């Protein structure tokens, strides 16, 4: 069998089971379908180039997540330098929400649900790329902080303090306090 064909087949076999999960992570990191597709494509380019380095791993998913995270940070910084922060992302939020596969609610409920989705996406976008990765991996996808530390290559203590700040910011942005601060202090 042709060596190139074998390599391509092995790459697809190793990668395909993780594609949907990686796309979901990419969406949470970028906040839009278009950006998630771009990020996933870049990830696959890189994974193919590095295939020799990870093809024999028993569980390659943490490797893939680390590459995804690093690419996300690189692309975020590049875009920030050249075009401003995620202008494309916010433009395409509404379209991305329309694409979500869920039962058709009433227009009023749908509008309210879309608003809530936009609020969450905007709150995530307001975080830096490192913070967003932490929130995505730990609070949304359920990885332990030890696992996140290994994936992001960030010390556990740094992650804990970063998580504390992230939570505080998200609670403020999403208005998740039990009552307004002035009431609490009264």
């Amino acid at each position: 069998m042709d060596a190139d064909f074998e390599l391509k087949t092995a790459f697809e076999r190793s990668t395909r089971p993780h594609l949907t999960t990686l796309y979901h992570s990419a969406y949470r990191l970028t906040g839009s379908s278009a950006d998630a597709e771009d990020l996933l494509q870049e990830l696959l380019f890189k994974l193919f180039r590095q295939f020799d380095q990870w093809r024999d791993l028993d569980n390659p998913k943490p490797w893939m997540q680390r590459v995804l995270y690093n690419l996300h940070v690189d692309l975020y910084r590049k875009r920030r330098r050249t075009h401003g922060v995620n202008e494309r992302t916010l433009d395409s939020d509404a379209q991305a929400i329309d694409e979500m596969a869920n039962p058709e609610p009433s227009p009023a409920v749908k509008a309210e649900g879309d608003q809530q989705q936009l609020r969450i996406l905007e709150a995530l976008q307001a975080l830096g790329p490192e913070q967003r990765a932490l929130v995505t991996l730990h609070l949304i996808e359920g990885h332990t902080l030890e696992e996140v530390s290994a994936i992001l290559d960030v010390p556990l203590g740094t992650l804990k303090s970063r998580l504390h700040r992230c939570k505080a910011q998200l609670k403020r942005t999403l208005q998740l306090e039990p009552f307004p601060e002035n009431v609490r202090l009264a």
Partner: protein
Amino acid sequence: MNCIEARQAIGHLDSGVRPEGPLAKHLGQCELCRQHYGDAMLLETLGSLKVPEPSPQFLERALQRASEEAVPSPVRSTKWRIPASLAASFLIAAAAMLIWDQMPEEQAVEIVEQRAPAEQVVALEAHRQEVRIVIHSSDEHAAAEVSIELAGNLELEGYAGQQRLAWTTSLKQGANLLVLPVVLHNERGEIRVRSQFGQGSHEVNVQVARKSQAGRTAPLVEPFAPINA
């Protein structure tokens, strides 16, 4: 209400419902339970973020593109072979694959050859294209050192922020192809490819520019310093 009862009550709160009565009174007095409430609501809110499913067509296309267009690993790949020779019979060709993602390869590749030391100009029509370096060698070499340096706000796709890449590779006799997926952030840039083996070394500078800039006679970029400077 004590803290244990408060946390049980928080667990039973419906989404979006503000605490009332004894729970609200307890939260007003207990900072730890207030934090617990905030954490629980945050997890519930973030968990409600719906994520669209990827298009199956996109996934297939992305997988296919990855294995067809990506550059194999420069560290361990057996495909990336630069031929080496102690003789001075290097021939280096740089080719820009124009409109590479739209045209058939045989129509899209424009090859220009030049004897080293080479100074080559390649015109790109897109922000991100492949530049192909072909180096011919008269014999094989087991461990050549190859390096790439980038100037003029160029970068290789997948190697963001790295202006220099170096590795050791085996070389074969004949033509060997190096495909560089170049991202050009400005109108112009320069790639220097250098190989070294035994007592000999060789390098080629490939200047890249957007199509509209390629025909100008002025220097395209600030040139690299001499090798041993």
